C-alpha cells in the first residue's frame, strides 16, 4: 500500500520520519491522475510541474490534494467547468486555497465539476462527464464530481469541494468516501465562484472523518474578506476529536424513513447504522416533520438557488469577464457571450431564477421559498435543542447509471431529491460517511447538527465510521 493511500496523520508521520518524501507522494499522485484521467475524467487541469513542499509541523504539509475548479487559484486556470470561463486564469487565491498554501499543502490539480456548480450529476462539465471509480457506467453525482472521484480512486488523500445543496455530500456518498460541509461561515467563501451565496459552503472530501477534521481545521477561520465568516477559535475539530459519543442523542425523520421502507435493502442498511449508533451508546429517537414541508424542500431549494445564481453569474457578460463573443452593440456582446458561453441547462436555470425574481412572481415564488426555508430551519433548530444531531440516509439509491437521471429539474415533489439541502438552508454542519455496499456500490448516511456544533457532528460520524468499518475503494483494490 502506498503512503498516498494512508490517513493524513499516517502520511505526515511517514514524511516526518523520512519514510516517504513530498516529491514521491506528488509523483505517485500525478501518475494516478494521468492513469485514470481518460477513464474517470477527474481533472480540468493536472499540475504536472508542481513542486514538493517542506515538511513542517502542519499535518497537511507536503501532501498533495485536489481542488474543485470553482475555487479561485492564482495563476492557475479556474474554469468552473464552463465554456464561459474556459480561459480564465485568476489573479488571486481563494482564502481556503491560500490557507492550504501557507500550510505547505500541495495542490496537484483542479477537478471537474458540474458547470458552475449547478448540477448534481457530474455530467455537465465543459470537458466531459466524470465517471464513478466503483463502476464507470455510473455517475459520481455532483457537483464536486472530480473531487469525489479523485479521492475515491486514491489520486489524492483529500480534495476541496463546495456544497450548495448537497454538492459535496451526494458525490461522497456515491463514491464511498467522507464528505463534510461545515457550518456556514466556518470557512471563508472568498474566491469561491458564487452559485447561491446564501447556500454556498466550502468543505472537503476525504477517506476518513479524522482527515476531514484536519482539512477543515486548516482552512477555517474568520476572514475580513467574507462578512459571513465568524471567529471559530473555539472550534478545533482535531483537538476535540473523540469516538466516545456515549449519551449523545440523535433523531431520524420518520417521514424519510417511511419512504425508505419501500426500498428494503436501503432501509436495512440505514437501520443497521442505527443499531451501530446504539452500540456506541447513542440514544436514537424518531421525530416527525410535516411531510408537506419536507416535500417542499426541493422546489424551495431550486427557487432560491436559481434566483441567486442568475444574479451571481451576471458578471459573466464578456465585458470584463467571460469569453467575449462579438456583437454590434454592448447588449449584443453580452447576449451572444452568455448564449454561447453557458450550456442549455445553465441558461434554463437562469431563466427560472429570473422569472422567480420578477416583481409579479417574487411574493408567490421567491418569498414563499424563503418561508419554507425558514420553517424547516426553525424546526431543525428546535429539534437540535433536544438532540445532538439528525441522522439521515444520504440518498435512497446508489449512483445511477448515465442516462437514468439528468439535471433537467423534476416536477415531482420528491422526498429524497434534496433532503441534504436542509444543511444548506440552515448552514448546519453536515457530514456524509459510507455505510456499506448495495449491489457492490457504496451507500451512505448523513449526520447533520446544530450551527457551530461541528465537533459534535464530526465525533458522532467518527464513532459510526469505526463501527461500520467501511473499506475505501482505493485500498480495497490492493487487497
Amino acid at each position, binding site marked *: 500500500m502506498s503512503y498516498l493511500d494512508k490517513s493524513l496523520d499516517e502520511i505526515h508521520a511517514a514524511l516526518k520520519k523520512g519514510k516517504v518524501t513530498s516529491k514521491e507522494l506528488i509523483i505517485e499522485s500525478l501518475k494516478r491522475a494521468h492513469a485514470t484521467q481518460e477513464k474517470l475524467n477527474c481533472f480540468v487541469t493536472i499540475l504536472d510541474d508542481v513542486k514538493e513542499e517542506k515538511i513542517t509541523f502542519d499535518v497537511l504539509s507536503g501532501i498533495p490534494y485536489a481542488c474543485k475548479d470553482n475555487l479561485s487559484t492564482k495563476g492557475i486556470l479556474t474554469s468552473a467547468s464552463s465554456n464561459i470561463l474556459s480561459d480564465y486564469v*485568476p489573479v488571486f487565491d481563494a482564502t481556503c486555497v491560500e490557507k492550504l498554501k501557507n500550510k505547505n499543502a500541495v495542490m496537484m490539480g483542479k477537478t471537474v465539476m458540474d458547470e458552475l456548480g449547478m448540477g448534481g450529476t457530474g455530467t455537465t462539465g465543459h470537458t466531459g462527464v466524470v465517471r464513478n471509480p466503483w463502476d464507470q457506467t455510473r455517475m459520481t453525482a455532483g457537483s464536486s464530481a472530480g473531487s469525489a472521484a479523485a479521492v475515491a480512486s486514491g489520486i489524492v488523500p483529500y480534495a476541496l469541494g463546495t456544497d450548495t445543496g448537497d454538492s459535496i455530500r451526494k458525490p461522497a456518498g456515491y463514491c464511498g468516501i467522507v464528505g463534510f460541509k461545515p457550518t456556514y461561515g466556518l470557512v471563508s467563501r*472568498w474566491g469561491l465562484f458564487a452559485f447561491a*451565496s446564501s447556500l454556498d459552503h466550502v468543505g472537503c472530501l476525504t477517506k476518513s472523518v479524522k482527515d476531514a477534521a484536519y482539512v477543515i481545521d486548516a482552512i477555517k477561520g474568520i476572514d475580513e474578506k467574507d462578512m*459571513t465568516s465568524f471567529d471559530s477559535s473555539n472550534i478545533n475539530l482535531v483537538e476535540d476529536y473523540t469516538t466516545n459519543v456515549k449519551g449523545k442523542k440523535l433523531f431520524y425523520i420518520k417521514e424519510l424513513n417511511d419512504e425508505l421502507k419501500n426500498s428494503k435493502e436501503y432501509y436495512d442498511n440505514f437501520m443497521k447504522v442505527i443499531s451501530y449508533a446504539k452500540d456506541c451508546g447513542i440514544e436514537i429517537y424518531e421525530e416527525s416533520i410535516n411531510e408537506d414541508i419536507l416535500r417542499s424542500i426541493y422546489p424551495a431549494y431550486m427557487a432560491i438557488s436559481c434566483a441567486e445564481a442568475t444574479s451571481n453569474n451576471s458578471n459573466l457578460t464578456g465585458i470584463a*469577464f467571460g469569453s467575449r463573443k462579438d456583437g454590434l452593440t454592448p447588449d449584443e456582446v453580452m447576449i451572444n457571450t452568455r448564449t454561447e458561453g453557458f450550456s442549455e441547462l445553465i441558461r434554463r436555470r437562469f431563466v427560472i431564477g429570473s422569472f422567480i425574481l420578477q416583481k409579479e412572481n417574487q411574493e408567490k415564488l421567491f418569498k414563499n421559498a424563503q418561508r419554507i426555508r425558514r420553517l424547516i430551519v426553525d424546526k431543525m433548530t428546535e429539534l437540535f435543542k433536544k438532540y445532538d444531531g439528525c441522522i439521515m440516509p444520504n440518498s435512497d439509491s446508489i449512483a445511477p447509471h448515465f442516462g437514468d437521471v439528468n439535471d433537467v429539474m423534476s416536477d415531482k415533489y420528491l422526498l429524497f431529491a434534496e433532503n441534504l439541502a436542509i444543511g444548506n438552508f440552515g448552514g448546519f454542519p453536515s457530514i456524509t460517511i459510507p455505510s456499506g455496499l448495495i449491489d457492490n456500490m457504496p451507500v451512505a448516511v448523513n449526520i447533520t447538527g446544530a450551527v457551530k456544533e461541528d465537533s459534535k457532528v464530526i465525533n458522532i460520524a467518527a464513532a459510526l465510521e469505526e463501527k461500520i468499518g467501511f473499506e475505501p475503494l482505493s485500498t480495497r483494490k490492493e487487497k
Partner: protein
Amino acid sequence: MYKVTIGLEVHCELESNSKVFSPAVNGYNENPNANVAYQDLGFPGILPVANEEAVKRALKVSMALNCKTPDEIIFDRKNYYYPDLPKGYQITQMTKPVGINGYLNIEVDGEIKRVDIHDIHLEEDTASLDHYDTYSLIDYNRSGIPLIETVTEPCMHSKEEALTFLETLRSLIVYCGVSEARSDKGQMRCDVNVSVSNTNELGSKVEIKNVNSFYNVGRAIDFEIERQTEILQNGGVVEQETRRLDDETGETFHMRSKVDAVDYKYFIEPNISPTPVTCEMLDEIRKTIPMLQLERKQMYKSKYDLSEYDSDVLVKVKENSDFFNECVELGADPKKACNWVTGMLMGYLNTNEITIDKVPIKPLMIKDLIDLVDNKTISSKQAKEVFEDMVTSGKKPKDIVKEKGMMQITDDSAIYDVVMEVLKENEEQAKEYNPEKTRMIDFFVGQVMKKTRGKANPAKTMQMLKEELAKYVK
C-alpha cells in the same frame, strides 16, 4: 391653471477611507483604473464587505434629514445588465434604507417650506464610460464609490423650490462633513421627476435621468413644464416616460416608455450579514450632527439681531459660520464679530481665494481685537492695521499693538499737556476758532495726533480741545 409637481432623486458621493464594499481608495485619480480592487471589477469569487464608516456617514445624513432609521443595516441587489456595472447588479438598499419618512425645511422667498423625504439609501456607484466613434472605454475608478441617494416626495411645485431644495440639501451634506458635494466634480447628480396637470390629480410622471448640475436641473424643469403644458393645452395626454436632457440644447428627449420599465429583480444581498443599529451608535452619530444652515441663519437673525444679508453671508460656508459662533461663544459682541468676519476676514479670504482653515487667525484674536477697540486701547482705524498683520502672521493682537507702539494715550493729563502745547504754538488760529466751523477743530486734532504719533485718544482729545478753545471765544 396648470399644476406643476416636482420630485427629486439626488445622488451624492460620500467621502470615506475606502470604497463602500471594497478596500480600494475612494478618491479622484486622473489615471483610469488606478483605484480599483477585485470587487470593483466583479472578479469571479469576490464578496462585498460593507464599509462601516460609509454606513455611519449615511446614517448621519439620514438623521440630519429627520428620517426614521432602520433597526439593522442590510443591503439589496438591483439586477440589470449594463457595461458600466461589472457585477451585473448594484448593491443598494431597498428593503431597509438608512432613512425613511424624513423632511428638510427650505426657505423660498422668505417662507419656510417643508420638503418631505421618502427615503435615503446607501449604494455603490457604477464605473464610468467614455464613448468614442467606434469603441468605448470603461474606467472603474468610480465603481464602488459610496453614494447616498435622497428621494423626495413629489411635493415641490416650482423650479425655485426644487433648486432651493438642492442647495439646502447640498449645504446639509457639506455641513455634516460627509462630502464636498460638488456637482462640478460629478459628486452630485440628480433624477428629476416633473408632472404637469390641469386637474387636482397628479399628472403623469416624467422622469429626466442623470442630470449633472443644478443649472441643468433648472433647464430640465423649465423645458418639461413648457413641453407638458403645451401637450395639455392642445388637449393631449402626457405620456409616462423616462427622458434624458441634452446638455447642449437644454431640451429633453425620449429614452424609454413605461412599458419598457426595467424590472430590477431586487433581493436581499446574501453576502452582507445584517448589522444591528443600536441606540448607542445612533447617539454617537447624532452628537456629530452640527446645527444646519437654515437654523443658524434663523438664530443669527433672532438671537443676535443680525441682518438677513449678514446672516446669509455667514452661513454660506460652515467653517466661517463656525468661526463666527466661536467668537460669540468667547464673549465677543455678535454684531461686531459679524462685521469683522463678514468684512475684513471674508474679504481677505475672497481676495486670496482661500478658505478659513488656511489663515492662522483664531476666533479669540477677533474677540481680543474687539476688546482692544472697546476699551479704547486702539482706534478702530488701528484695529484694521492690527487685523491685516494678524491675518498673515497669526500673532496675538495685543502683541501686535505692543510691537507697533499703538497703545493710545488715555491719560488725561498727558493729553492735556499736548493740547496746551498745540494751542500755544498755534495761538493765531486759536483766536479765530469758531465752534460752528468743524474743519477748524480738525486742524487742532490733527496737530495733537501729529505730536503723539496718533496715540492720543481721539475722543478725549476732541473733548479737551473743545473745552480749551471755548475759552478763546469771546
